[in-house]
């Protein structure tokens, strides 16, 4: 058996320096004429351990974590040359108890079945892992379009972009509308700040998305396919382009695909130009057509009149990646996972103040607490868990005491948050919830397309109130005003952006009202985040008199001689925080 060395080269791996690791191993292999096969793969989800290097030899598979170029030399020398695996660096293996074994064991990988296990730039490797088998089964078994749609319906798969609409039903509608021209669109405009599931799937397993689209095209009789992808994801676009080219060469795209007479289908990539609202399906269609990405009124739904006014089916990346698996394994196998109304698995991007930032795929029905503590490893620096933000700017903050809520569409909705596309940003006691609400509202306010007055002006007015509160000028009645505006915006906006924009504010008021009140009534920020509400003082015990803060203070509020204790004049201090960030001895106190 040939020993293989595989380096994880997803965006996160590359950001952590995986290219240098790869180059180093390649150089070693060439200079020392080492006998192993060097391969590339994408993200296996363990972003917090990047760069990752996997070695498979006769004895088993070993995943090494945090392998920078120096460590790579060590690993190759010991493991390859001396056949002596370095236990301390191994994070996952099937051979013995390694620190991250549980991280893998607790997951059910359907969407991520290939991510991190194969070279995303090789169609052969995808095929060796049951790739393009689903569409082959359909063509060889002469499965009817209705049967395919029925399988997806029975599987209970719901739209993974956040809406949660049954995918099979969407296909059924698009199929029912007859037209010589129909379209399948893959929504890869993953704009939620703090979410990176779709990016990982596109970078790690682009063919599964293509195959999902091909199956959808077959089911609804589509003639053209578009992947609308964020321009901020250059690696995903590059790998999709490679995949499309390969699929063409094999005849999996083009004319009479898989021998199905008259099944002509092609896919091209449309790079988004940077507008969050384009995640909304009618805005996305407007953008593909070259217009400003503004949503329009529904009905007619895209299934009736979509791209170029033709029947169109839009699904999200993760939804498409599920499809081939469901066709191969059957609807029952998929529906076995999950809860009554939410079937299958869901991919979450864990980020924020959690120990193990990364990508996890869990069966629906797991509690949020288990996701954060069992998979996420708990809170960084042993701080106290405060809340988790789900659903990005459209979602809300779920407080610690509700963290036994299970992940399924309806349970999460009941808390006021939404499942969304799967971003989970964990917050600890040092996160100010008013500041978080302001952060999201600032985002939606900037991203509002301006079509509906309530969304355009309402978010602006809400942001002004939040600005005032975090600047220490909050007034009695502000919370009531915020709530009133919030419900008006929700009720009177055309698209999902406006209808959900107030959610972060509403959930934080609902669960963390005391924090708002501390800001408004006592002019205090309990989490010590809102600077205008803080007082900066010198810790006389720790101050060494190094004069760094004094020199950097932009308003000369700090006085003191070299090697003498310094003093901050509160009347002059503008609370800019420069002294706090410049001090090397942690001797600036916040209160």
């Amino acid at each position, binding site marked *: 058996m040939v020993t293989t060395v595989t380096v994880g080269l997803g965006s996160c791996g590359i950001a952590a320096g995986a290219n240098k690791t790869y180059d180093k191993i390649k150089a070693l292999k060439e200079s020392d004429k080492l006998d192993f096969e060097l391969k590339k793969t994408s993200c296996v989800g363990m972003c917090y351990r990047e760069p990752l290097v996997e070695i498979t030899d006769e004895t088993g598979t070993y995943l090494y974590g945090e392998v920078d170029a120096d460590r790579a030399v060590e690993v190759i020398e010991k493991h390859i040359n001396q056949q002596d695996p370095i236990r301390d660096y191994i994070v996952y293996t099937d051979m013995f108890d390694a620190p991250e074994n549980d991280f893998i064991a607790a997951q059910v990988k359907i969407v991520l079945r290939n991510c991190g296990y194969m070279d995303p730039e090789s169609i052969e490797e995808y095929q060796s892992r049951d790739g393009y088998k689903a569409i082959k089964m359909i063509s060889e078994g002469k499965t009817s379009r209705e049967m395919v749609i029925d399988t997806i319906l029975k599987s209970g798969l719901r739209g993974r972009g956040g809406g949660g609409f049954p995918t099979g039903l969407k296909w059924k509608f698009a199929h029912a509308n007859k037209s010589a021209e129909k379209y399948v669109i893959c929504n890869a405009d993953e704009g939620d700040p703090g979410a990176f599931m779709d990016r990982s799937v596109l970078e790690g397993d682009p063919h599964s998305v293509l195959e999902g689209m091909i199956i959808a095209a077959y089911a609804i009789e589509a003639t053209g396919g578009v992947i609308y992808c964020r321009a901020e994801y250059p690696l995903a676009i590059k790998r999709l382009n490679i995949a499309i080219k390969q699929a063409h060469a094999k005849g999996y795209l083009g004319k009479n695909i898989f021998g199905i007479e008259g099944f002509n289908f092609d896919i091209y990539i449309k790079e988004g130009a940077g507008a*969050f609202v384009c995640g909304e399906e009618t805005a996305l269609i407007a953008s593909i057509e*070259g217009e400003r990405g503004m949503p329009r009124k529904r009905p007619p739904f895209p299934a009736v009149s979509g791209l170029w006014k033709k029947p169109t089916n839009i699904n999200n990346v993760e939804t498409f990646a599920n499809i081939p698996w469901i066709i191969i394994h059957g609807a029952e196998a998929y529906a076995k996972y999950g809860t009554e109304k939410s079937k299958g698995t869901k991919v979450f991007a864990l980020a*924020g103040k959690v120990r193990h930032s990364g990508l996890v795929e869990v069966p629906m029905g797991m509690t949020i607490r288990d996701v954060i503590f069992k998979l996420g490893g708990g809170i960084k620096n042993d701080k106290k868990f405060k809340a988790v933000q789900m659903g990005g700017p459209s979602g809300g903050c779920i407080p610690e005491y509700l963290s036994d809520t299970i992940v399924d569409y309806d349970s999460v909705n009941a808390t006021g948050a939404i499942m969304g596309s799967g*971003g989970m940003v964990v917050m600890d006691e040092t996160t100010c919830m008013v500041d978080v609400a302001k952060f999201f509202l600032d985002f939606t306010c900037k991203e509002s397309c301006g079509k509906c007055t309530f969304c355009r002006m309402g978010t602006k007015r809400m942001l002004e109130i939040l600005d005032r509160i975090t600047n220490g000028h909050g007034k009695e009645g502000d919370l009531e005003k915020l709530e009133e505006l919030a419900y008006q915006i929700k009720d009177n906006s055309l698209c999902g952006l406006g209808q959900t924009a107030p959610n972060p504010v509403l959930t934080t008021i609902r669960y963390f009202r005391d924090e708002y009140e501390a800001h408004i009534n006592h002019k205090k920020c309990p989490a010590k985040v809102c600077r205008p509400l803080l007082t900066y003082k010198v810790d006389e015990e720790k101050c060494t008199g190094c004069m760094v803060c004094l020199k950097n203070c932009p308003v000369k509020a700090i006085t003191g001689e070299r090697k003498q204790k310094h003093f901050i004049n509160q009347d002059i201090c503008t609370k800019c*925080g420069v002294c706090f960030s410049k001090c090397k001895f942690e001797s600036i106190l916040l209160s």
Partner: protein
Amino acid sequence: MRIARINTSETAANGDEQDLRLLDPIIAKHKGKKGNLIPLLQGAQELYGFISKAAFDKLSRETGIPLSDMFGVATFYAQFRMSPVGKNIIKVCHGTACHVQNAVEITESLEEMLKVKDGETTEDRFFTLESVACLGCCSLAPVMMIGDQTYGKLTGNEAVKIVKNIRLADKN
């Protein structure tokens, strides 16, 4: 609202030194095709780094798309710039994960060091400082991206050091 990102004082710089003939292949490729407006603008920006007044004029004249439509689309999307940018664009991530881990400090430290505000370009046109929504490297938060290189787990001081080193490396 999205329109707020237009800064009238520097909107659509003239671009006198640009070789507009470079636009010809792009126009030839997209002319007359449906949905061509965004690819046309993306092509122009890729050539010059921004879309100048002259480029707008030429695109509109030769494709027949009204200037108002072009401007409407160009100002709607965050990607399009209408003024020249620096040689290096510093993209500081302000996604949720970065925000709760103090991305503000990074932008402020860089603003102070480069003596520019967010979105502006240094006088020597060497750096442009930008805030972006999410770079998708949340596990390394807070992050910034300069060129193709991503820098993670930053503090304000570290970010300043990295930027200083890039300038030093260029001078040598």
